[in-house]
């Protein structure tokens, strides 16, 4: 196991010896899941699905399962329990995100649950509590601007989608850095508790 260099914004991380060339390759593994969250009938809320569309069109994912859903649900704890690595892709309204941002998801019961909303952190924590395993989970947030009842992305969010796609081609060593130094190494990354 060779340590992977940390990016500028995050702390140290260690990965397996077979270092992937790109971020996408890191997730495009057996047991990989790329999960687009959103609704393409509500303009930029469709960003998560749009990235899945792009990956499908390009045919670049040979191993990872590609998946779309309107929102995260508690059952996703069951969906990810058998996975090795999960990349959630969702639109964000946050002005702190210029075009896209990739961050590791830490398991945390943040009590965000409603019939229409639950956080990725809570899904991960529930997975660990109920099924005894938590995969490595990341969130790719893509900046959106309009959420009206209409098909199609706004031009600005379409640009951000292209930026997000390009980001997935960045070198994994630069793009994937965990904030959690307790992260262990190996094919399966078990993560520390909240």
């Amino acid at each position, binding site marked *: 196991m060779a340590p992977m260099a940390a990016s500028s914004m995050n702390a140290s991380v260690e990965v397996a010896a077979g270092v992937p060339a790109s971020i996408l390759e890191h997730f495009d593994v057996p047991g990989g899941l790329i999960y687009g969250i959103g609704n393409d*009938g509500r303009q930029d809320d469709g960003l998560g699905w749009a990235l899945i569309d792009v990956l499908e069109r390009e045919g670049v994912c040979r191993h990872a399962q590609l998946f779309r*859903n*309107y*929102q995260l649900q*508690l*059952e996703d*704890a*069951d969906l990810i329990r*058998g996975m090795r690595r999960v990349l959630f892709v969702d639109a964000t309204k946050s002005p702190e995100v210029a075009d896209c941002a990739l961050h590791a998801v830490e398991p945390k*019961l*943040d*009590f*965000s*649950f*409603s*019939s*229409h909303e639950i956080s990725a952190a*809570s899904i991960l*924590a*529930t997975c660990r*509590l*109920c*099924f005894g395993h938590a995969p490595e989970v990341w969130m790719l947030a893509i900046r959106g601007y309009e*959420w009206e*009842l209409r098909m199609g992305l706004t031009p600005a969010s379409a640009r951000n989608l292209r930026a997000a796609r390009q980001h997935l081609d960045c070198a994994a060593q630069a793009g994937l850095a965990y904030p959690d130094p307790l992260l262990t190494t190996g094919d399966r990354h078990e993560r520390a508790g909240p």
Partner: protein
Amino acid sequence: MGRKLVIDPVTRIEGHGKVVVRLDDDGKVTDARLHVVEFRGFEKFVQGHPYWEAPMLLQRICGICFVSHHLCGAKVLDDMVGAGVRSGLQITPTAEKVRRLGHYAQMLQSHATAYFYLIVPEMVFGIDAPPEQRNILGLAEAEPELVRRVVMLRKWGQEGIKAVFGRRMHGISSVPGGVNKALEAADRDRLLNGGPDMLSVDQVIDYAQDGLRVFHEFHAKHRDEVDRFGDVPALNMSLVDDAGNVDYYHGRLRVVDGHKRVVTEFDYHDYLDHFSEAVEEWSYMKFPYLKALGREAGSVRVGPLGRLNVTKTLPTPLAQQELERFHDYTKGRANNMTLHTNWARAIEILHAAEVVRDLLQDPEAMQTDRLLVTPAKEAWTGEGVGVVEAPRGTLLHHYRADAQGNTTFANLIVATTQNNEVMNRTVRSVADEYLSGKTEITEGMMNAVEVGIRAYDPCLSCATHALGQMPLQVTLYGPDGSLVDERQR
């Protein structure tokens, strides 16, 4: 000085609403109302669209009970093309069984969400437990095995929906005159026998019985509180079959009183002859009532409690056994205890699981050559009404289309709207019990009001046919109108 208390939004319900409670100088509740402040839009939105698009568009009102909207709309389309109950040319038994299979799978999935995710945490931790504990994630921390079972139970329901409608959400299989696919053997076998990542139907039935045990344990510990909480009168309404027992997919509408005497029973196509809707300036949600009785006496309760008050039996053995216990508890009278809605809901989860099992074993649900009837063009009526018993209660769709087949009119009366009056009665009753005369209003007291609303599992976005975002809100006002306290989450 008197006070006004606002709970805004009311949490763990679907949609945006708020509760306003007014107190007098002595701190006694003088009024309490559930306000629904969402915009009503979908009925207009579908106008001008081809008639066959309506069930596809209208199911998108909701991410929870979309199957009910889809099936209700499909029944309307059957009427419109001349394949409805009044035309003499009805859909095939296969089509009806496939629709019922999807309907009961959704009943199980939706009730499991409401019951286990939104209500059971309060049974386990208490109404006044800290908010960060009394939710499904708090339950996951305290009872991970229970939550694991619940996750798998709901997943099984979703897989049943997917087997019928092709997708877990907003799928399509019902078309005018029937369905476009039968149940496939692989799906049937997976749902019946389970697998490494899937429960078997027998496990589902076991887990559904767990749900009943949770209610009974809670009830045994807090019997007086549960029975007294929101004990409010209302008529009870449900679709019934020819024997007068609940039929979740089709039948006539029956209304019974507190003694379970039949007040009225009619063909749902004639609903406009029987129901009228009152409007209040403080809420977008209307107040339906039976015209013959007027608003106060003619408001009905629908949903699990209403249905089990109407029906005499359930056609599956385990649910029937529990129904007898439920009926015995009130000694032949209708059950008006709001929190017993959760008992009724748990019975319906079990019943739905048993019905799905029976339908999965029915070879007629797999007959691929008997999916559709195709009426002659002359059979076109251009108008239809559909009613199903959705998880939350009686759901009605009514459309009209012009000669070109474009929708000119749509009317939806959803369960939450039917329950509007009885929900408001519950809010008043609970506010009076928990807030009246108290010198200090705690978060737990405020939550009691929300618990009363959540028992109905209201879907406010369905009720107002909302477009847009849907954040629910309790507010306390003094007699001079000054804001005293407010909760918003």
